[in-house]
């Protein structure tokens, strides 16, 4: 009995020690970058931690330990502008719900992950960009008669549960039947064999799926967007200097052709021509 109790106390002690050790680790990480912002960190450490999506072909897709896609290329351009080599970038997978916490806690320095700029998020973090204006669209079979969201009445639409596109379908096109999954990749086989009539999310993401080799030529993006989703780059709320620097880098990328090169290298294979980066729409980084 006595031995058991002693062992239990030791176990609890070890556990709490392990927990504090973890806590300590992340703390040092954030205090190092938080004080001077990303510009300072890039200068002193020549390192950046960038949050990207891992499951979106064409934008941010993880294969093995490599990340590739348009978001990843944009992040590389920004890192280069800040004086950080590609080898100095540490990629971190972020998902929709953990992006704000990751930025606030300093787990990542930058987030380039199909991150729509909106007012709710602006209260917690700062946005540079937008580097791309996406819009909600529909992906349908190549021979489908559907040409817009108003034709979805009685049709089955597939999307990710609890996502903004799914909510928009529910509220604005309530006559469409909504099948929800935890990822878009589950929608595609159903679209292929006709059990859902359309898949909906941002056009650029759909283009990424349509460009995957196993679906080449089978699907088409309708091309009639019914929302506007400006993709921004997330930074810490107080890092105004970093935000302005990122916008400056984006401005330069638009004029020197590296933005177009990033597009052609990734989403260009979907057949969509590179968009113009409209530098007049860049955010003011939180200044009033």
């Amino acid at each position, binding site marked *: 009995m006595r031995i058991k109790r002693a062992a239990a106390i030791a176990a609890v002690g070890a556990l709490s020690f392990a927990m504090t050790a973890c806590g300590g680790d992340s703390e040092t990480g954030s205090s190092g970058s938080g004080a001077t912002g990303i510009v300072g960190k890039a200068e002193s450490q020549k390192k950046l931690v960038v949050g990207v999506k891992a499951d979106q072909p064409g934008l941010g897709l993880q294969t093995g330990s490599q990340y590739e896609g348009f978001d990843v290329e944009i992040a590389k351009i920004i890192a280069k502008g800040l004086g950080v080599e590609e080898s100095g970038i540490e990629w971190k997978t972020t998902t929709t719900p953990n992006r704000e916490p990751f930025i606030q806690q300093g787990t990542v320095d930058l987030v380039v992950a199909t991150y729509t700029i909106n007012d709710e998020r602006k209260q*917690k973090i700062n946005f540079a960009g937008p580097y791309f204006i996406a819009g909600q669209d529909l992906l349908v079979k190549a021979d489908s008669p559907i040409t817009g969201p108003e034709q979805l009445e009685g049709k*089955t639409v597939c999307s990710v549960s609890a*996502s903004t596109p799914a909510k928009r379908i529910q509220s604005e096109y309530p006559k469409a039947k909504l*099948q929800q999954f*935890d990822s878009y990749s589950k929608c595609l086989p159903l679209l292929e064999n006709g059990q859902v009539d359309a898949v909906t999310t941002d056009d650029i993401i759909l283009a990424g799926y349509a460009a995957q080799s196993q679906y080449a030529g089978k699907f088409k993006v309708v091309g009639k967007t019914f929302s506007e989703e400006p993709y921004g780059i997330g930074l810490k709320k107080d890092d105004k200097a970093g935000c302005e620097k990122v916008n400056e880098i984006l401005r330069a990328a638009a004029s020197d052709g590296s933005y177009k090169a990033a597009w052609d290298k990734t989403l260009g294979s979907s057949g969509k021509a590179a968009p113009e980066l409209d530098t007049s729409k860049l955010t003011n980084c939180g200044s009033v």
Partner: protein
Amino acid sequence: MDIFTDPTNIDAYVSGFLWILKLTGASAVCALVLGVLLAAMRVSPVPVLRGFGTAWVNIFRNTPLTLVIFFCYFGLYSTLGLSLADDLNLNNFWLGVVGLSVYTAAFVCEAIRSGINTVPTGQAEAARAIGLSFAQTLRIVVLPQAARSVVAPFGSVLIALCKNATIVGTIGLVEASTVMKDLINSYGNAVILIFLVFAGTFAAFLIPTGYFFGWLANRLAVKR
């Protein structure tokens, strides 16, 4: 916090837990019927039935429930075209019930079989001696006594079933855990509160269930 005063959120919360209760109820009935049949097969004198029962239990008890539910959607519905209802949500619901039932039936079967082992062999021998058939022995003598000794394990199986019902969310039924994810996505600053409310609701259902089955087991136990 305005999260749990906003009527749309309340509606979503209520409908999420209603789906959980419906899934649990429908699956519990199906799993009980299936489980009793399987247990009967596993103790029957017919080798083919015994083999079938054993195979069922070993396959479904050792397969992750997520895969079983996925198979119901992508295998039964998507590939084989088995549609259980015209309405999208109802179809997903019944596919979920199928998955939960075949999975839980394996556990019900094993609980009953353990209960059968608590009935002294002399009971079955005496039943045979007065000329009852296998089916009669099982139905009239063995199962009633066995059932009374497995009330407590049934409680555990039912509690597990209720929590497992959240997995049906992965095939698109907007049940409690999907609603929770939804709320967390829209109220990123109140993650812990949302989590606690949902966990608390489950506990509020399930703790009394556990005590009820404990009390029932005590009351019904065969005192030997």
